[in-house]
């Protein structure tokens, strides 16, 4: 090693150049660095996105002239009065109930898949499971929904299949269930539910799988070591620890169901969901204030939901 070590300066000279100088500044003032990093996303999301959101919410305090369909820019709570009419409350309860059902069932259906992929799949199988979940996720949403319309139609594939294997009476029995049944699956709540479940399922599987993978194996072993058989371990250790992932997934399934307007339109009984109501009021009817008031509903619901999810630490599992 070169013995000239001690001859070199302890402090090196600054290399000339604007960048180097800027770099010095960023080091001396970490807050400047932070500001540089935060400014673009905060401007974009905070100003454009949140700004639009607030502008929209503000519009819910206007009302529409009933005949011409033009917005009158005067502050009023009239639109909220309208929102609280029984017709609209029906829509809200219908949607929230559906979203809750979809979320619960998605969690139930997703669990074995996520669990298997997280705990048992190795190497190639792991990739198979990953692709198996990702592929439907990224296949065209619309085409998937349309495929379901064909499956569920009265003269569709499911009927065809059921009649081939002689299970028609079963199908009819299901359709005869009041409220959720109907003339055919494609015009019943069951149908709408199935399509929602199908389309959002991957959004539940992925965070759930991630959460399950994060549970250290040693905890499961510790549980077995303590005498718990696999199902007891599942109940007392695995599920509680994977819960944040389930909550993270449920943010998606719940929110996406709350806002969708295409699925209930294509497969459903013409009874409106919030998304359709918003779509109809802003697009078809041009009643932006009412549409805005309707959007307040999911915003408030998701607000509480996110607050709860945050407290459970679900954000880290997203």
């Amino acid at each position, binding site marked *: 090693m070169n013995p000239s070590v001690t001859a070199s300066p302890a402090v090196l000279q600054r290399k000339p150049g604007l960048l180097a100088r800027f770099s010095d500044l960023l080091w001396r003032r970490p807050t400047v660095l932070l500001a540089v990093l935060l400014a673009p996303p905060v401007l974009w999301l905070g100003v454009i996105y949140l700004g639009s959101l607030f502008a929209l919410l503000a519009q819910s305090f206007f009302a529409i*002239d*009933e*005949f*011409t*369909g*033009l917005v009158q820019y005067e502050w009023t709570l009239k639109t909220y009065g*309208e929102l609280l*009419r*029984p*017709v*609209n409350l*029906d*829509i809200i309860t*219908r949607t929230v109930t559906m979203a809750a059902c979809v979320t619960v069932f998605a969690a139930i259906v997703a669990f074995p898949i996520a669990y298997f992929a997280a705990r048992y799949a190795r190497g190639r199988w792991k990739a198979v499971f990953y692709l198996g979940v990702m592929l439907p996720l990224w296949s065209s949403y619309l085409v998937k929904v349309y495929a379901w*319309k*064909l499956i569920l*139609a*009265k*003269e*569709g594939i499911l009927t065809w299949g059921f009649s081939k294997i002689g299970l028609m009476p079963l199908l009819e029995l299901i359709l005869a269930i009041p409220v959720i049944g*109907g*003339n*055919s699956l*494609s*015009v019943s709540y069951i149908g709408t539910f199935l399509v929602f479940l199908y389309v959002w399922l991957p959004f539940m599987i992925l965070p759930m799988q991630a959460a399950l993978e994060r549970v250290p194996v040693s905890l499961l072993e510790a549980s077995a070591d303590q005498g718990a058989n696999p199902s007891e371990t599942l109940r007392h250790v695995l599920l509680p620890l994977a819960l944040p992932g389930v909550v993270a997934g449920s943010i998606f399934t719940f929110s996406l169901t709350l806002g969708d307007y295409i699925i209930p339109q*294509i497969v*459903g*009984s*013409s*009874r*409106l969901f919030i998304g359709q*109501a918003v779509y*109809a009021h*802003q*697009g*078809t*009817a*041009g009643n932006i204030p009412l549409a805005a008031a309707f959007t307040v509903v999911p915003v408030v619901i998701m607000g509480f939901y996110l607050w709860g999810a945050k407290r459970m630490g679900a954000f880290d599992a997203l």
Partner: protein
Amino acid sequence: AEMMTELGAGEGEVVIVAWPGYIERGETDKSFDWVTSFEEKTGCKVSVKSANTSDEMVALMNEGGFDLVTASGDASLRLIAGKRVQPVNVDLVPSWSDVDDRLKDAPWHTVDGTHYGIPYMWGPNVLMYNTEAFSEAPTSWKVVFEEMTLSDGKSNQGRVQAYDGPIHIADAANYLMTHKPELGIKSPYELNQEQYDAALDLLRQQRKLVSRYWHDAFIQIDDFKNEGVVASGSWPFQVNLLKGDGVPVASVIPEEGATGWADTTMLHAEAEHPNCAYMWMEHTLSSNLQSDLSVWFGANPSVPAACTDGRGMQTAEGCTANGLDDFDKIKFWTTPVSKCESQEQCVPYYRWVSDYIGVIGGR
């Protein structure tokens, strides 16, 4: 905007909000094309946004960015009142003189003598039915309003449809005009509270029969094919397409008469391409459009000559079949207002909107 007084050169483009099937350039069926020739002649490229309901048309026009709209009577007055459309100078449309006299001054586009558009097409909301379920043509709208056993031995429950637009309340009122004369309904668009409630009751009864309402012509076609629907109020358009696909359907105007639509090409108040727009309006009257569209859509031309002068495919018989002579049986869509002509106080349209959502939602 002020009414135009003279035409300039085309702007190279015109943007139209139209009902589906109204503006065809041969893509669906090569023989139905009334756009290409216009584009070649004038250099105005036509772009079309389809709207499925009148409400959607109004909303689109309120939003702007369009030159023309093929508004039905239940939308046109709202557009005029909202100042979304401008008066049309009929002198700049040379073929105006060919327009059916019954339509020239129709109240849905003429306000205080000022014209706000050029009539486009008109037609009835027919009763479409499946000829296998109905051994003979139904004579009354009853088949879609009341539960009954059809001639194939099965109930009509779940096998009929209705239009997913508040204007369907008028169909119910129309039915009541015949079947509950004691209500004293004069026009299905002018209903007092009592008449209105009766119409809603009828619709609630209908809700039990209907699995899914239709709001899109093509979805209705799918439903007749795949969902076992056998009867519904419909447009001749769907009837023609289904027949073309070999589905056993036919249509009829029942004894109660029918509601119907009369559409008007209207010019947006802030149209960016007014010259091309005027050229298009002239084109709608003078070209093969009226004749071929009347065949394609199963509607009636606003230029009666189009039925006979061979400018397109339509023939006199065809026009008769489409109901050219039934003009008087048809109650054309207009926007319900509270200050109505036939009575003191009527239920206005905005209530139709939310109440109809309620009826469909089961309330």
